[in-house]
């Protein structure tokens, strides 16, 4: 039982810090907070790519880092502590691993380079208007016509579809057997004829989400990943990838730090809010749970390093991690008081008289999604009940 880092881990931490100091510069920070977001995040991901750090979880043979779990933990902690955004997950975190795991040699050659160098932006076509947590009930259908599939239907909650070059889609290719059978995982060029992207303005007043319509969209059969009618296997593997890192403890730790800093400056009744015993109790209880979750995360990491797999236990990290993210976002809203309601996202502190109200609002409102996406927390509890506790 020991938590000290080895010498090589400390050297790695220095290397990460130096890289962030040099590459995550002020110009990039201000571009990320502007309408120039897409170009800025692609620019950042390409800097990571050049360093060889874009794909922390990929095998080395496909361009991954080969990091140990301890190195991954160090990297993530340093990243979140500085407020550096994570890699956009749809390419690197989701479709990439499916292609190297289930794809043909031709698919790997065609798609992996564009994912790694961030030249191709991906989005995820999973949920449908009638299929959310019950994903397997999806109805978007693909019918074979010669050497093409013809897709008809609609996908919903598609983040960043407005930026995307490609979409990976779960389609129904058969209605026989159980609903999990007859699903196929297929890659579709967003420039295909018959695709229409309808924006959905979110509860955060932002445009991140979309509905994507498919009207007789023709897709070559060679774009199927894995076997036809066996897409559910691919879908589940992808969700397991999605869950890893979803707890984002480092991000919650950073938010707690920001809350403490702001609460030391916020005066209420003649004294800083941080000295109010009621406020102290709220923040202490949160901080204590986050402290514990960090070690739950480390225990999972250590188990993986010893050759184990996180398995369904990672659902625990998803549940607790997202609940604590939301609780932290909520406390930051309370701290912002009246300024939590300010609508313009980019209003200067000089004009507004407040520094983080709009940011707190956007992260709190968008944060409602975290207990819904990646398999809702109710679904995660079902997974633990069944696969960890053995309850039927």
């Amino acid at each position, binding site marked *: *039982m*020991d*938590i*000290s*880092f080895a010498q090589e*881990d400390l050297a790695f931490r220095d290397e990460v810090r130096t890289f962030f100091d040099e590459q995550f510069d002020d110009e990039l920070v201000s571009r990320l907070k502007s309408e120039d977001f897409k170009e800025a995040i692609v620019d950042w991901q390409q800097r990571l790519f050049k360093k060889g750090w874009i794909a922390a979880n990929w095998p080395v043979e496909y361009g991954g880092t080969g990091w140990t779990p*301890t190195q991954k933990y160090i990297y993530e902690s340093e990243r979140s502590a500085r407020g550096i955004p994570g890699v956009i997950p749809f390419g690197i975190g989701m479709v990439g691993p499916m292609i190297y795991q289930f794809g043909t040699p031709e698919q790997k050659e065609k798609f992996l380079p564009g994912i790694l160098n961030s030249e191709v932006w991906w989005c995820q076509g999973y949920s449908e208007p009638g299929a959310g947590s019950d994903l397997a009930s999806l109805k978007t259908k693909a019918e074979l016509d010669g050497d093409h599939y013809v897709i008809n239907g609609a996908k919903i909650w598609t983040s960043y579809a407005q930026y995307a070059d490609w979409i990976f889609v779960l389609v129904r290719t058969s209605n026989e057997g159980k609903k999990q059978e007859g699903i196929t995982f297929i890659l579709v060029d967003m420039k295909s004829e018959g695709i229409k992207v309808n924006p959905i303005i979110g509860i955060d007043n932002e445009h991140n989400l979309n509905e994507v319509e498919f009207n007789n969209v023709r897709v070559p059969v060679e774009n199927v990943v894995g076997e036809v009618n066996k897409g559910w296997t691919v879908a589940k593997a992808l969700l397991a990838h999605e869950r890893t890192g979803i707890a984002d403890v480092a991000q919650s730790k950073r938010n707690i730090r920001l809350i*403490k800093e702001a609460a*030391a400056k916020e005066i209420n009744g003649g004294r*800083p809010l*941080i*000295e109010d*015993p009621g406020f*102290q*109790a709220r*923040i*202490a*209880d949160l*901080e*204590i*749970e986050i*402290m*514990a*979750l*960090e*070690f*739950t995360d*480390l*225990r999972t*990491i*250590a188990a993986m*390093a*010893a050759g184990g797999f996180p398995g369904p236990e990672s659902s*625990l990290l998803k*549940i*607790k991690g997202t609940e604590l993210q939301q609780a932290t976002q909520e406390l930051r809203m309370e701290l912002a008081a009246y300024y939590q309601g300010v609508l313009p996202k980019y209003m200067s502190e000089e004009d507004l008289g407040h520094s983080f109200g709009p940011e707190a609002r956007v992260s709190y409102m968008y944060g409602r999604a975290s207990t819904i996406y990646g398999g809702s927390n*109710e679904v995660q*509890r*079902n997974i*633990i*009940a069944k696969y*960890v*506790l*053995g*309850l*039927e």
Partner: protein
Amino acid sequence: MNFDLTEEQQMIRDSIARFVQDDYDWDTRRAIAASDSGMSDKAWSTFAELGWLSIPFSEEDGGFGGNIVDTMVIMEEIGKGLIVEPYFPTVVLLGGLLKRAGNEGQRSALIPGIIDGSVLGAFAYLERQSRFEMADCLTTATAEGDSYTINGEKTVVFNGMNANKIAVLARTSGSQSDREGLSLFVVDADAEGVSRIEVPMMDGQRCANIRFDNVKVSADMRLGTEGGAMETVESLVREAIIALCAEAVGCMGTLNAKTLEYTKTREQFGTAIGSFQSLQHRMVDTMIAYEQAKSLLFKAVCEFKEDPASADLTINALKVLIDRNGKQVYGEAIQMHGGMGITDELDIGHYAKRLMMIITSFGDATYHRAQYAAKAYAA
């Protein structure tokens, strides 16, 4: 970074688990707790024979040279088995004071007795007015020549009825709540002027209120410097809290396992109640509560191992979390066992009552949350 136990630690864990399985089932434990002394001499001899009483003492003192991880392992197993014998008051508290402040003569006079099982220990610190402020002490020790005279009363002393050696916190100078001016003495339980009233506790412990009326104790039995006891006490309390929280984690894990098992077999409305989603989701939450508590225990242990004082903030946090999550775990265990959960016959309520005593010992969540805030949010 690793959270593995060494081979020796796994052996200790397995040997206690085997003892509980073979020789300390629930009926045996109930009978022991209901007996005159509330402990089993036979079980205690086994602890001595198997070396468990020697583990935290240095090899020079005849011990095993174990560290905080060993103590955690032992206490967690004690929690799982709901072992009522006074390991904590004897080895962790009295032994812990001797390790920290005892001189060579005192250690060689007492530690071999702890190791061979002949010394049963206690630490008398609580007074009626002191609650969680240990320095709030009215018991006095007055120096006369090469001895001291102790006067005062200590309450709810763990193992107070069975102890034959009692460490006493007493004031040698200063006023009621001064941190300075406190001293520690080891008193024989049968010394003239010591009188005890038995205070049986809901968790099976035999505590005592102990009066000291002009009790003479030789200066040789003062542990550490005169007036400087609080440093020793605070150092001890760090280890004591970790030990009790490890016991709590053992209790919580067992409660969860028993509840899970029960819901898989108990049938209502024609099906196992574990098939109901409302219970499943709550059992997932008690599992998470347990894992979170265990994680924070590991953090405290790892920090303590590097440098005990560096664990202070985490120890406050741990005590808060054990309070909140412990109540959640035993509350759900009682609820899901239904009517059986509120009987004396079933072990569930007894695990709950042990957890409740741990939660309040050395400060509850309200107390430790305030301590945490004072450290973390100081201007």
